C-alpha cells in the first residue's frame, strides 16, 4: 500500500470528505510533508474505488455540484488497519535496533 493511499484511507477513517478536503486534511496532518495534486488524488481514488476500499456517496451535501464525496468501506478499514499493524511491526523492529528511542512503558 502506497503512503498516499494509506493517508487517503486515514482521512476518510472517521468522516466522509470530498476530494479537495482530502488533500487539505492530508496536508494538515502531515504538516505539509505530503501534498497531493488533484490528478494524483483522483487517480488514487479511482484505484481505491475499483478495489472496493472506498465508495462514493450518492448525496451531494455541498453547494458545488462538481464535488464528489467519498467514505471508507469495511474492507477499506480492514486494509488500513492491516497496513497500520504492518507499520507498527516495522517500527518495533527499528526500535529493537535502536533506530528509534525506546518506547516508555505505560505506567
Amino acid at each position: 500500500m502506497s503512503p498516499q493511499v494509506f493517508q487517503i484511507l486515514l482521512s476518510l477513517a472517521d468522516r466522509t470528505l470530498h476530494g479537495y478536503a482530502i488533500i487539505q486534511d492530508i496536508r494538515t496532518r502531515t504538516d505539509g510533508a505530503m501534498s497531493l495534486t488533484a490528478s494524483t488524488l483522483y487517480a488514487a481514488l479511482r484505484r481505491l474505488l475499483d478495489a472496493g476500499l472506498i465508495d462514493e456517496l450518492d448525496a451531494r451535501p455541498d453547494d458545488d455540484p462538481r464535488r464528489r464525496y467519498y467514505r471508507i468501506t469495511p474492507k477499506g478499514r480492514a486494509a488500513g488497519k492491516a497496513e497500520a499493524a504492518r507499520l507498527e511491526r516495522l517500527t518495533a523492529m527499528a526500535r529493537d535496533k535502536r533506530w528509534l528511542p525506546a518506547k516508555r512503558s505505560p505506567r
Partner: protein
Amino acid sequence: MSPAPAAPSARRSVRRLATRLYTAALRLLPDALPPGGRGAAAEAFDALQDEAWQARGARGLAGCWLAETGSLARLLAPRPHLPRRPMTMLTHDLRDAYRALRRSPGFTLVVVVTLALGIGMNTAIFSVVDALLFKSLPYADAERLVVVAERHPLGGRNTVAPANFLDWQARATSFTGLAARQSRTETLLDGDEPRTLRGALVSVNYFALLGVDAALGRVFTDADGRPDAPCAVVISHRLFAQQLGADTARLGRDLAFAAERCTLVGVLPADSVFDRGAYDVYRPLVLGPGATRSSHFLTVFGRLAPGTTVARADAEMVAVAAAISGEHPEIELDWSATVVPLRDVVVRADTARLAWVLMGAVALVLLIATVNIAGLGLSRAVARRPEVSVRVALGAGRWRVFRGLLVESLLLSATGAAAGVGVGRIALRAFSAYMPAGTLPAEAIATLDGRALAFTALLAVVTGLLAGTVPAWHGARDNVSGALRSTGRSVSGSRASARLHGGLLVTEIALAMILVTGAALLVASFVRLTRVSPGFDATDVLTLRLSLPETRYRSAQAVADFYGRVTANLQALPRVAGAAAITSLPLGGWLYGATFSVEGEPVDPARPPAAHVQHATPSYFETLGIPLAAGRAFTTRDDARAPLVAVINETFARRFIPAGDAVGRVVRMDEFNLQGEDDARWRIVGVIRDVKTYGLDDAELATPEVYIPVAQSPTPSLFVTVRSDGSPATALVPDVRAAIRTLDPELPIADLQTMTDRVGGSVTSERFRTALVGGFAALAALLACLGVYAVRSQAVVARRREIGIRVALGAKRGDVLAMVLGQSARLVVAGLGLGLAGALAMTRVLDRWLFATDARDPWMLAGAMAALGLAAIAASWVPARRAAAVDPLTVLRDA
C-alpha cells in the same frame, strides 16, 4: 509575497484557462479517474490554485501548475499506475534466465559458441557488403561523383581521348568540374635500387574534385598544369613512409625519377583511400591544344552540379559528344559518351555479386545454426516441463512462462552476439588477408563500425526470437495437470514436440542443401577450369617485366639492341634452357591491338578486322613451349635489315585466311618498324597453336593474334621469360638479376614471378570464392548433421518405452534399427526435396561463375543430394543403434 490586487480579473481568466487546459488533459485519461471524477478533479484543482495564490502569489500558482503537470505526465505515461513495473519484470526475467542457464552450462556453451561463430561471420560479411553497396564512398559528397566515359560503337565504356576531355570541360554544364587521370609507370631512383611504382598523371583539379586535400604540403594548383611549369609530384602517404621514412624535411625537395627530377609538393592523407589505391605518385596532366583525339586513355571523373541527375548529365554528354563528332570527321562512327555513378565503376558487378552470394551463404549458415538451437531449446523445454508446470500451478501465467523462456533465448543470443563481434573482427581480418588483391576496391573500407554493430544487434534479436519462439511457445502451452501427472514418467515424448523436431530437421536439411549444391557447382567448375590447357608449358619458367626509360633509350634501335643482348646474356646463363621477351604474357590480357588487312582477302573498309599485336624475340615460342602448327618461328636473322615477317595464331588463320595455306601470305598493318615502312607488309612465316589470352575460361574461339619480331618493331616495355633446364625457376632469380644489372644497373626489375604462379594467379578470384562458399557449405552440412543427430537422439529417448514394448513383443534389433533409420530417411528426403527446389531457385545467381558447368546439371544436383543425404543418415545412425540396444526389461521396469 502578497497577491497583486491590481489585476484580479486578469488573474481569474488565467486561472480559468489553466483549469480548462487541465480538464482537457484529463480527457486523455478516461480510465484513470473515477466516474465523474473529471469535474471533481477540476474543482479540486481550482481550489488548490486558489489556495496557492492566497499563500504565495504567482510563485505559488506556478508551483501548483508544475506539480499538477508532473502528476499528469506520470498518469499519461504507459501503465501509469505501475510506473516501474516493466523494468522490474525484465530484470526478474533476466535473473531467472541467467540462473536457468547457469544450471545447464553445456547447453549454454554450445549455443553461445555456435551463435558467436554464426553471428560473427555474418557481421564480417555484412561489413563488406555495406562498404561495397551502401556506405558512401570515402570522398566528399561522394553521391555526386560520376565517371564520364566514351562509349564505343559496341556499347561498352571506353577511356577518353584527351582532346575530347578538353572539349567536354569547355562545353558540359552538368558538372561543377571534370577531372582526368592517366595511369603510368614511374621509376623512382631514390633508394639503393630503382623502384617501379604505379603513377598517375592527373588534371590539376583532380584532388579538389574528389574533395581531398594534402596532409602535408599541398595538392596541385593551376600553375602546376602549365606546359612550362616545373615538375611537381604529390605522393601517397604509404610511399612517404616506406621510401622517405616519413621525413617531412623531404617536402619541397626534389625526388629523382628515371625521366626527370620533380619537386615533392605534397603528401596525401595517411590511411586514406589513397593508401589502399593503386597509385603512389601523382603528377600534373598537362594537355595542350595538340592533344590527341584518336587515342583514348584518360579516366574522367565529374562532380554533378547541384540539381542535376545522372540521367540528365548523361543526356547532355550524349549531345555534347554528337556535336564534337560532327565537327571532327576523323572520329569513328557511332562513338558517344556516357555518365555513370562512381560507385557503379568502383564496385564491379562481379564484386557486388560475390558480396551478395557470401552474405546469402553466411545467412544460411546462421539460419541452420538457429534451427539447431531451436531444436536444442525445444528438447530443453520438454525436459523442463515439470518445473514449468509447477510454476504454472503456483500461479505463473502462460504469458509469464512464455516470456521467461523467450528472455532466456534472447540472453543467449545477446551473449553470442557480443562474442560474435570478436569473431567478426577476426573473420574480417582473415577475409582481408586471404582475398586476392583487387577483390575489394580501395574505396570500400570494411570495418566493424557502428553500422556493423547495429546489424549484429539486429541479428541477436532476430536469432533470439527465431530460436526461442518455438520452444517458448511449446513450453508455455503445456497443460498443467497433464504435465504434473506425467512427472517422473517419460515426459518428453509428446506428439507435438516430435512434429516440431521433425519440422526443424527438414528445415535445416533444406537450407544446407542449397549451400551444398552451390558449393558443388563452384567446385566442379573450378576443377574443370584448372584442367584447361592454357596452350603453353608454364613449368620452370621465370617471368619479369622491364621498361626501358625513353631518356636513356632514345632510339628504337637502342631498344631492339638491348632486348637482343639481354635475351642472349640470359640464354648464356647456367641452368637456363631458353630466354625471350614478349609484349604481354598469356593469360595477361589483350595489351593492345591493331587493325590490318590480309592481302588477297576482302575487307570491309568501315569495319576493318583487328588483332592482338605481340612483339616477340626469336625463341619466345620455344621458351614457353607453344607448339608451331605450320611454318617456322622467328630467328635472329629476322632483324632490322631483313624483310618484315609475322607469325599468327590458328584463330587468326582460321578467321581471316579461311582458304589455303596461311604461310607466305602478307598482313598489311600500319605498325611501327625500323624500316620506316608505312602500312607495312608483314609476310607470315609461321602459325602457332592458340594460347589463352585473357584467362583459362577464354571462350572456345580464342583471340586472333599476330606476332612480329622485336628486332624489326622494337617496343620499350616487355616481359622477359626465362626457362630453366628443369631446376626450380626461382633458383634462377639471382643470376637473372645480375645479368640484367650488368647491362643496365638503373633498370628496375618489376613483377618477378614464375609462370606457374601467374597461371595460379589467373584463377585466384575463382579459387577464393570457391573456397569461401565451399567452406560455408561444409559448415552448413556439419551443422545440419549435428542437428539431425540431436533431433533423432531426442526422438529415440522419447520413444524408449514404445521401442522396449516392441522388442518385448518380439521385434528384432534389425527391425528397430530399420524403423528408426527409415523415419530419419523420410525426414531427410523431405528436406532434400525442399532444398532442391530452393537450390534450383538460388543457384541461378552462380551461372556467371560457372565454367563448363550447368547450374541445373541433374548429375550435380543428384550428387549433392546423395552426399548430404548420406551424411545426414549417417548422423542418425548412432541414435538408431542406441534405439536398437534398448533393453525392454529396464525400460518397462523404469516406466
